[in-house]
């Protein structure tokens, strides 16, 4: 009898991503499909618009990470006009972006991922949420997370003009700078953010690394995939979120390629399937070999873990210390265990906070030199930043008036569509076997497989209680439900 398990994470997903698990005659997993049901069509309807509007229009791709689209669009528009913004403009953009990273990573760790570790994957459902975390480690932690969110949004608004959907980046720089008073406030908030980053890593160290069961879970096979890894690096091969070249390393850690943004089409292609609206990017040099890992499969991953794997280190001292400890603890580079992504995310948070302070301390940050007027005829340009959820590529072609004729977007989470699908399948195969009763903690373990990627179509940061509710319906061959399981209802 063929059985089908539909995991329909109805809530806390933008759109309603769906996991179909098909069982074979024996009751083992035959195949899984992770479907994305939404397409709004930005690549079509942005054509005809003036390119300087792209930082405003593409914000609306994602209200959780509009800052990432705003920056990628601004950089692509700079490239279209062949204009290099003044140093102050670039620093201000990166400063906004660093503050955004602190906010975004903090929200994800504390609200979403933290509960699995702090409370444990098999803790009672009612406790496995941010409130449970607060009860266990103390009330002040909730205040700290709210402060981190507020501090980040304060900086985003000061530089970007708005808390959601920033509006100040234009080709050649920004529409405004900051005052010395604003700089002082930003610096103070940044110093607090560094402390918050250190606090978060200490918390991870005490609660997760201090518990052998969790370390075993992280190092276990269920959540391990040996893929290629992508991340942006600066001229010293250190992680950078705003600017640099995209570096890809193999499952053995060796560099496969390091490319400049404008060369991305030589290295990246996207595979399509008829059962989903989202595409599957892969490395051209290796090729699409299906949903499989290893050196011969072009599947790559672009996450905090990937960025650390793809870099040689972090550009700031405290984050660098943590980076070294990370690889020492987990047995060298690269780390393939997906659950280590949560730790990597906190190291990135600390780096972003340190970078925030570094940029706010620069004597030129409050300068009036925040815009260079473009003078050349616009043509074509690519802008790449590291979105929290993966490398984000915007590619525009315009006519001589700067009106768009072609748009291509490879969005953060899209990079990880194939690996997420693979992680779900592997977790399902490991956990669902003939004769096993599918339990709620088991579903949570499947869910943990994709939670580590912080998928944006999961709108992970939207989630306050820190759980993706799942409903599993097991159907018989006639499609009749024979059992319905709900996760935390």
């Amino acid at each position, binding site marked *: 009898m*063929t059985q*089908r398990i539909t995991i329909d994470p109805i809530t806390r997903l*933008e759109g309603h991503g769906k996991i179909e698990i098909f069982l074979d005659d024996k009751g083992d997993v*035959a195949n899984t*499909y992770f479907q994305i*049901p*939404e*397409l709004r*069509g930005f*690549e*079509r*309807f942005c*054509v*005809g*618009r*003036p390119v300087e*509007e792209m930082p405003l*229009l593409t*914000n*609306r*791709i*994602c*209200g*959780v990470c*509009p800052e990432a689209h705003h920056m990628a669009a601004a950089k692509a528009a700079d490239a279209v*006009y062949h204009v290099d913004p003044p140093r102050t403009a670039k620093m201000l953009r990166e400063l906004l972006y660093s503050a955004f990273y602190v906010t975004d990573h903090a929200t994800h760790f504390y609200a979403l991922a933290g509960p699995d570790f702090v409370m444990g994957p098999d803790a009672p459902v009612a406790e496995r949420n941010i409130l449970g975390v607060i009860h266990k480690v103390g009330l002040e932690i909730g205040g700290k997370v709210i402060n981190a969110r507020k501090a980040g949004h304060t900086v985003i608004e000061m530089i*970007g*003009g*708005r*808390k*959601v*959907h920033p*509006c*100040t980046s*234009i080709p050649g720089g920004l*529409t405004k700078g900051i005052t010395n008073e604003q700089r002082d406030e930003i610096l103070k908030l940044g110093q607090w953010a560094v402390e918050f980053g250190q606090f978060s890593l200490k918390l991870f160290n005490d609660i997760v690394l201090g518990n052998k069961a969790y370390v075993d879970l992280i190092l276990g096979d269920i959540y391990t995939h040996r893929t290629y890894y992508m991340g942006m690096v600066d001229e010293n091969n250190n992680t950078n979120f705003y600017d640099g070249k995209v570096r890809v390393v193999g499952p053995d850690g060796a560099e496969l390629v390091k490319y400049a943004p404008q060369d*991305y089409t030589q290295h*990246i*292609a*996207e595979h*399509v*399937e*008829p*059962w*989903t*609206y989202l595409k599957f990017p892969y490395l051209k040099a290796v090729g699409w070999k299906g949903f499989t890992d290893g050196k011969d499969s072009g599947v790559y991953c672009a996450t905090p873990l990937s960025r650390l794997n793809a870099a040689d280190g972090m550009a700031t001292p405290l984050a660098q210390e943590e980076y070294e400890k990370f690889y020492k603890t987990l047995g060298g580079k690269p780390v393939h265990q997906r659950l280590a992504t949560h730790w990597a995310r906190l190291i990135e948070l600390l780096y972003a906070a340190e970078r925030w302070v570094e940029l706010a301390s620069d004597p030129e940050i409050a300068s009036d030199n925040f*815009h260079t*007027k*473009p003078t050349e005829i616009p043509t074509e340009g690519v802008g790449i930043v590291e979105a929290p959820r993966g490398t984000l590529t915007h590619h525009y072609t315009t006519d001589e008036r700067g*009106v768009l004729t*072609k*748009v*291509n977007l*490879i969005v953060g989470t899209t990079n990880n569509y194939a690996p997420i699908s693979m992680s779900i399948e592997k977790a399902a195969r490991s956990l669902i076997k003939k004769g096993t009763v599918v339990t709620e903690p088991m579903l949570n373990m499947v869910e943990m497989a994709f939670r580590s990627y912080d998928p944006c179509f999961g709108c992970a940061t*939207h989630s*306050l*209680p820190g759980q993706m*509710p799942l*409903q599993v319906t097991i159907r018989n061959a006639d499609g009749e439900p024979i059992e319905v399981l709900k996760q935390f*209802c």
Partner: protein
Amino acid sequence: MTDNAKPKFAMYWAASCGGCEIAVLNIHEKILDVDANFEVVFWPVAMDAKYKDVEAMEDGSILLTLFNGGIRNDENEHIARLLRRKSQLLVAFGSCACEGCIPGLANLSPAGEIVHTAFNTVSTDNPHGIYPRASFDVPEGEITIPKIFPTLRTLDQVVDVDYYMPGCPPESHQIGAVIDLVVKVLHGEAQLPPKGSVIGAGNSTVCDECTRKRNVKSITSFKRIYDVEIDPELCLLEQGIPCNGPATRSGCNARCVSAGAQCIGCYGPAEGVVDYGARLIAAFASVIDSTDPEEIEAILDGIPDPAGQFYRFNLAGSLLKAGKPAWEKG
């Protein structure tokens, strides 16, 4: 009072970006007022809930539903109809639900072309012309995804809407004010505004909230924002920057304009404006300092994308609703 005696509240996203949800989160401690006064029965951002739980509720049992996002596919429409049936008050929340927002610009093209473009970009490897299908037979069985409609529609083009709350996203202070009002109504201290009202926004234009100086009311050319050394004090339209303030509803405190960026119109048509684009065209026409048709033509050429300029957020909700190609088979 037990939880079950509290009035029920729901919030939902259809074709949207999630920014409305973030704006609601940004009201911080006011969220507690919602919690104190309502039983939240369906709110993907904050709690677990499922379609079937909503389906099981009695019709009209939810007092207030905030619905954000446009209607792009059959799943969006299904939930819009479901929540309409279950809710006493349905609010079109945010620009997408009110007027289509940026995703409404898709109505300039046939839906087929949207999919075709996405599946044929420069980085897409699609030699066999594969496109997503609403229903597809994989070896193990049939799997389905929602079907895209020919155009994106606003919420009130699909179901009856009680109130409109504009903005992309609505400003958090406005969300807070609306929550205060609703709580007062619940305690018998205030009355609801008439059905069909715009709530959480002003009654005038962004220009009325803008602190920039206005001197001459005439321009001789439109300029691209990156081409101007922006005067931080002077009206942007007077500097030649096509600023949408004159046609756009107030309520945001002229936030973008204060940051040196033009108003792009996210709060939708100002009070009494039937068609946003028509009003903006009239406003721009009135500042053009020329009577010579050729010169006027040349000045207007300074606006490179009239469709986007005049209907950036409002196309789906405008009198036009869509460009002609959207109705053709694509």
